[in-house]
């Protein structure tokens, strides 16, 4: 059994779904995505959590360039495969209340995007990785531009050009690595073995860094993100924030740092500082936001900044923290955007000032919101806690520069306080207090909404109380990768 079934099923599903009529398409999409989840769980049950790559497929693809269709799952990929396959059905469920025009195309694009992202998360060949990377971008562009808000045309083209620019530089980096590799292939293991000098590695590092920093997004490459998240339809926003930004983080772990360890080592402190600046900067801006969806978008930049700082520390705690935080951030951010989707669908507004007192009229909704919010804030016993804890420990353990680690960890630690401040304030303004004429009519959640909220809340709590199984999946792979690459830093 190879990973190919996981990569090709969504493509087939996308084509079938795209041809279906309104009304049937969403059920078909849900069915296919649940089937994907079941397949992923079968893989998980057969997965041996050691450092090896499993379920490998490796067939020649473009022979004249030494390109192979080569993919497999190790511990690091497994987490992201789980993330993708869990979130896509959830996201499809959250859109059940929407009546999209031309539904088949919408869900077809979502499934196609899933295929692209799964390729990114499992690719072992640089060319395949790049193709998956772009294959995920095209559908989300169309999703945002076709079903988005008023300013969508201008904003989505900015988003597209921004990310496309970054990835083209990455392509040049990949081609350069390929031409330097001894046996002229795009095989990642060959790339890992190469020892280029610091100058070349620095160039490669920046080529990859641009692509990944834009995708995450990292300060100062984040300017496309709040607009795009706000204008995109809720399903698209969830795909972007829940899964797609993890392509950038995963890329940094798998492709950027191991392929250019010396280049990375050279700029490690700078990269970490950018991550930490992002945390503080985005938190402060989030604090001032009036639009709820935009607030969540900025809070996502803050969280990603911390994850990036943890990775750039490049120690086991930091990277493990990033692994579990990617999963948990995905769940939480989808939850948060779902909350705002519910509110804006009922009341036609996302202005925080116009809301208030919703908890009185919609207690179930209030409980769901609170649980997801606490997960986002990172309260102990919710899923956000363990990741942030490990990430901060990772930053703290970063011992290349004396005292810098203390400062960085302290500043990055502000994320927890800042996050608590703006999130709890948000909750107070939206949910508590007296109802006004607008919010008095708010109907409590029911049906698929209730089901979706229940699933998300259950995940928040279960993963918060017992994260060990998830940590265990990636532990061996992360340990091996971190040690193998870390040993090159001292050269």
């Amino acid at each position, binding site marked *: 059994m190879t990973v190919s079934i996981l990569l090709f099923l969504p493509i087939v599903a996308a084509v079938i779904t795209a041809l279906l009529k309104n009304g049937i398409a969403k059920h078909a999409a849900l069915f296919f995505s649940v089937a994907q989840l079941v397949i992923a769980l079968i893989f998980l049950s057969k997965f041996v959590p050691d450092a090896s790559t499993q379920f490998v497929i490796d067939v020649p693809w473009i*022979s004249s360039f030494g390109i192979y269709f080569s993919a497999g799952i190790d511990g690091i990929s497994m987490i992201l495969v789980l993330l993708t396959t869990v979130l896509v059905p959830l996201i499809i469920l959250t859109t059940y209340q929407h009546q999209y025009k031309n539904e088949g195309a919408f869900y077809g694009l979502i499934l196609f995007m899933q295929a692209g992202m799964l390729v990114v998360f499992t690719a072992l060949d640089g060319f395949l990785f790049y193709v998956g990377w772009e294959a995920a971008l095209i559908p989300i562009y169309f999703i945002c531009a076709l079903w988005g808000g008023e300013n969508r045309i201008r904003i989505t083209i900015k988003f597209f050009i921004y990310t496309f620019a970054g990835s083209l530089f990455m392509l*040049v980096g990949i081609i350069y690595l*390929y031409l330097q590799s001894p046996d002229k292939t795009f095989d990642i293991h060959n790339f890992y073995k190469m020892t280029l000098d610091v100058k070349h590695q620095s160039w490669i590092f920046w080529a990859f860094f641009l692509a990944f920093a834009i995708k995450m997004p990292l300060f100062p490459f984040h300017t496309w993100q709040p607009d795009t998240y706000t204008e995109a339809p809720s399903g698209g926003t969830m795909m972007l924030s829940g899964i797609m930004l993890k392509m950038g983080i995963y890329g940094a772990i798998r492709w950027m740092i191991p392929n250019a360890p010396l280049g990375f080592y050279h700029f490690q402190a700078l990269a970490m500082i950018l991550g930490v600046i992002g945390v503080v900067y985005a938190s402060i801006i989030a604090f001032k936001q009036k639009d709820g969806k935009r607030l969540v978008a900025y809070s996502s930049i803050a969280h990603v900044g911390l994850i990036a700082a943890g990775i750039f520390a490049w120690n086991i705690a930091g990277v493990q923290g990033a692994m579990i935080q990617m999963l948990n951030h995905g769940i939480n951010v989808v939850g948060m955007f779902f909350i705002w989707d519910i509110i804006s669908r009922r009341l036609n507004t996302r202005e925080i000032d116009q809301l208030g007192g919703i908890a009185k009229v919609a207690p179930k909704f209030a409980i769901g919101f609170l649980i997801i919010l606490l997960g986002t804030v990172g309260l102990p016993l919710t899923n956000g806690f363990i990741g942030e804890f490990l990430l901060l420990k990772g930053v703290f353990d970063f011992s290349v520069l004396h005292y810098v680690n203390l400062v960085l960890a302290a500043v990055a630690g502000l994320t927890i306080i800042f996050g608590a401040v703006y999130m709890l304030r948000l909750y107070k303004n939206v949910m508590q207090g007296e109802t006004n004429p607008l919010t008095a009519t708010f109907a409590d959640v029911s049906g698929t909404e209730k089901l979706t909220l229940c699933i998300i809340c259950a995940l928040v709590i279960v993963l918060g109380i017992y994260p060990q199984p998830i940590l265990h999946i990636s532990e061996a792979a992360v340990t091996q990768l971190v040690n193998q690459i870390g040993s090159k830093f001292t050269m």
Partner: protein
Amino acid sequence: MNTIIIISVLPIVLLYLGLYKAQKALLPVTVIGLLAALGFAICQWTSKDTAEPLYTGMLLFNNFSVVFSSVTIISTILILLLSKGYFERISRHTAEYYAIILFSLTGIIVMVSFNNLVMLFIGIEIMSVSLYILAGIKKSDFASNEAALKYFLMGAFSTGFLLFGMALLYGSSGSFNIDTIREYVINHPHIDPMFYTGIALIIVGLCFKVGAAPFHFWTPDVYEGAPTLITAFMSTVVKTAGFAAFLRLFSACFQPLSDFWTPIILVITIITLFIGNITALYQQSFKRMLAFSSISHAGYLLFAIVSLGAASGNSVFVYATAYSIASIIAFGGLILVQQQGGSDNFESFNGLGKKNPFLAFVLTVAMLSLAGIPLTAGFIGKFFMFSGAVSRYHIGLVIIAVINAIISIFYYFRVIIAMYFRTDERAELTVPVYYKVVFALSALATILIGVYPDLIARFI
């Protein structure tokens, strides 16, 4: 060799058919004839590439020629299929269109299989003279006449450069034969300055023919003035042939002297990329945008010459194929929109996604391919070109190309944005069956090559 014979006899047959008023038979006879020529061409393909020169060393029909003849013949067939009903609108004498296009194709086949500079010149002239007529074939149309005159004057001028360059090469090496010139270059440590001058003049002549800056000035006006179908022919088949000849000459003769001409071509490439892309950005007319974008594609194709090597032939072949089929879709879509009420502005594509989902979809595939987005053939072409350039350490050039690829997104996506995201009251376009077949085949080929380039990438 049968290919050239068939393609040169075919137009005469067509002229006779026209004489006897057999208008209905024109297209079928042309297509069948071209398919036969294609079949003969493909039969010449050998896995070891052991073709011998023919006609006392004048022509060499090797794999390179087979591959480029095939792609030009196939593109011509696709364009002629689109011409069903098109020429009849312009004039009553439809036979002459078919005949002149095929005469031009004869020149092209000679251009891709020459083994002697004289044959190269004759090929280019057969092609060009036919094109001068084709550009001005709307006899009563002012723009068409202007296009023909401009094209003829500039073309004749550049032919002068080409011929002068060839004469200088002959003067220093003593032969027009490619093999002899190559031996001269290899065996003489001190090459005559006259020879270098010859190379420079030939570069000027060929750059004119392929529409590379700064010799591109004729392109936009000629492309705009000529009938759209002829523009499609010029920007796909003719451009492919031009690059094939360019590459064949340089890889056969001038490779050892690359220190001399690489800087020249490098500068030309960079100027071409920027001029093509930036000017395309400001166009309001779809047709003019395609004209300028074809200049920028000439820039990408020049990558193969800059990084001349064993893989260059393949790169040009894949890139030119991808570019040709995508352009055929684009021009086909333009013809439909123009014919049925619209102008050739971007606005006339507004709302097409709702009314004609199929047409909008294939146009989107074409635009994505031209922009070089993965899973389309255009990306594979760009990938081959970039790889070639990086392998010769032209990193700066590749970065400039990347910037240009980003610029090009703006104008290619304008079409997609107009079709899907802008709404307009419009009637549904009727897409004739021939168009549907051509569009479907081209879009399918674009995606297939994009997903599995080994289909075509191992023939040279």
